């Protein structure tokens, strides 16, 4: 039974290993020279950030698609990313460009968004998935326009803010941010494992909340838990990398094509595939154009054609 999924696992793990090797070996700094060890430190941190960010975005995307019973959901559907962008932009506008301010501001923005969306979606003590989507989409619009307002008010940091919102793995690591990133990495692993432990409930929820309830699933608890874990993880990742689009949307679909829709395979598969694909996109983003491209441009250029193919082949 399990053996038929072995080739899929081999492909995903090879993808991640190859992407990691490329990510470390290729870069504007070359692979030789006196400064190699300093360059390697940077690249290894970049590799770790890529694995965590790609893995988390894909796992959260897969979990939310299951929870919302909607194959078009992604990690940013619930508005957390735009909240993080707003928090980070505010710190930039206020002139706090250095050190840990942007990540902390981004994470705070994400958490505030999570609380607002949760409060809006709560009606008579119940949180419905429809309520979460509606509240999340509305808040996304509000915060995106506030980000633009912040950008106009603080013209000098415009370029930085754009780069921030479009996603990158070039986080500047200082003493403090390395520790912060370590905390994010631990948080990510714990959060993804927690989501994984809810695999069967997510499977059942994808046939509707009421049906799941009659099958003994506490849909309220699953909804609230998945929402909070997803928001915290995405907020934490996005505050380091900005909003990297498409990985969280496309990777789960890719993994379902390999493994079928069951979350106990889709979630770990998405972590590995998301990490690999994000690292490959990053290799392209920083080596094809001098000076580097924002990551979302590459993920979208690769992701959109694939997604169109996916939609056409399913309709």
């Amino acid at each position, binding site marked *: 039974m399990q053996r038929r999924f072995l080739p899929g696992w081999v492909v995903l793990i090879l993808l991640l290993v190859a992407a990691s090797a490329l990510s470390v070996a290729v870069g504007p700094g070359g692979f030789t020279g006196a400064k190699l060890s300093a360059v390697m430190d940077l690249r290894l941190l970049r590799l770790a950030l890529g694995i965590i960010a790609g893995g988390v975005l894909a796992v959260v995307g897969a979990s939310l*698609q*299951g929870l919302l*019973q*909607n*194959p078009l959901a992604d990690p940013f559907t619930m508005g957390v990313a735009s909240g993080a962008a707003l928090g980070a932009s505010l710190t930039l506008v206020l002139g706090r460009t250095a050190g840990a301010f942007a990540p902390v501001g981004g994470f705070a923005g994400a958490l505030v968004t999570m609380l607002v969306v949760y409060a809006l979606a709560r009606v008579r003590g119940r949180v419905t998935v429809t309520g979460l989507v509606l509240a999340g989409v509305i808040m996304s619009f509000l915060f995106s326009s506030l980000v633009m307002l912040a950008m106009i008010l603080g013209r000098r940091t415009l370029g930085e803010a754009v780069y921030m919102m479009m996603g990158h793995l070039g986080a500047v690591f200082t003493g403090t941010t390395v520790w912060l990133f370590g905390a994010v990495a631990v948080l990510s692993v714990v959060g993804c494992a927690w989501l994984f*432990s809810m695999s*069967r409930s997510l*499977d*059942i929820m*994808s*046939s*509707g909340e*009421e*049906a799941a*309830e*009659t*099958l*003994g*699933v*506490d849909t309220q608890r699953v909804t609230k838990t998945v929402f909070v874990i997803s928001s915290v993880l995405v907020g934490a990742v996005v505050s380091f990398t900005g909003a990297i689009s498409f990985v969280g949307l496309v990777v789960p679909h890719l993994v*379902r094509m390999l493994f*079928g*829709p*069951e979350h106990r395979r889709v979630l770990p598969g998405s972590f590995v595939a998301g990490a690999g694909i994000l690292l490959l996109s990053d290799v392209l983003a920083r080596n094809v154009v001098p000076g580097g491209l924002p990551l979302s441009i590459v993920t979208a250029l690769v992701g959109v054609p694939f997604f169109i193919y996916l939609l056409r082949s399913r309709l």
Partner: protein
Amino acid sequence: MNAIELSGLAFGYDERLLFEGFNLEVAAGELLGVIGPNGAGKSTLLRLVAGLLRPARGSIRILGRDMGALGRREVARTLGVVLQENPFAFDYTVSDVVMMGRNPYLGRFQSPGKHDREAVTAALEFVDALFLRDKRINAISAGERQRVVLARALAQEPGILMLDEATSHLDIAHQQLIARILVQLNRQGKTVVLLSHDLNLAALYCSRILLLDRGKAVACDVPERVITAELIRSVYGVEPIVTRHPESGRPQVMLPVAAPGQPQITQMSQIPLAGTPESQNP
């Protein structure tokens, strides 16, 4: 002991109560049909009994135990529910879907064991759908899907089954198949509650019929005393023709050609049909 016992039940979606002081007893081993016009409260009643809605007042007892004291997993082991709509956002295999019925027996980190797989096979066999086990749920017909969803409820190994419009999208062969499966389950001792718009199906197979109208139990008795011209007229506002089933003698309902006061269509041949030779060739 009663399988389901509702007493003094009150419930409304807004300030206006749909059910008020509602009582119902369903004996263990009964095959109860629930009929009534759209909006009569059939599905609401099912949702209340299944614990999907909370009553404002009154008590719901399942196999003698108060609903409020039962956890949802315990309810799921006692009561299998087939809802009207069963969308699947992702394309699970049929056996994955039926295995979901084992959820109330499995711990959070527990994988399905031998008994769970046997229960899935037995449930699929019972509804004559074992051959579908490796098919994708969104790639089978509506009749097959209804059997699979019923098998999922059977995999819960419940003493009570409740079905909301289990036959409404199905052709007559599948309607008969589902009805026969339900009768057979009932003979094996399961309590079955069947919500249906199909008066004839309910009259033919149910031992007792509850006729609901705007949250009130208009009648709850053997089919002969519920499916009568008077009751059907007063609840549905149609002028029915009630006859007897030639084999079982159960009441069967037909609609007249036209309601009183409306123009009668006398002969089909008088209706001009587009595409007939006459209309093409004047």
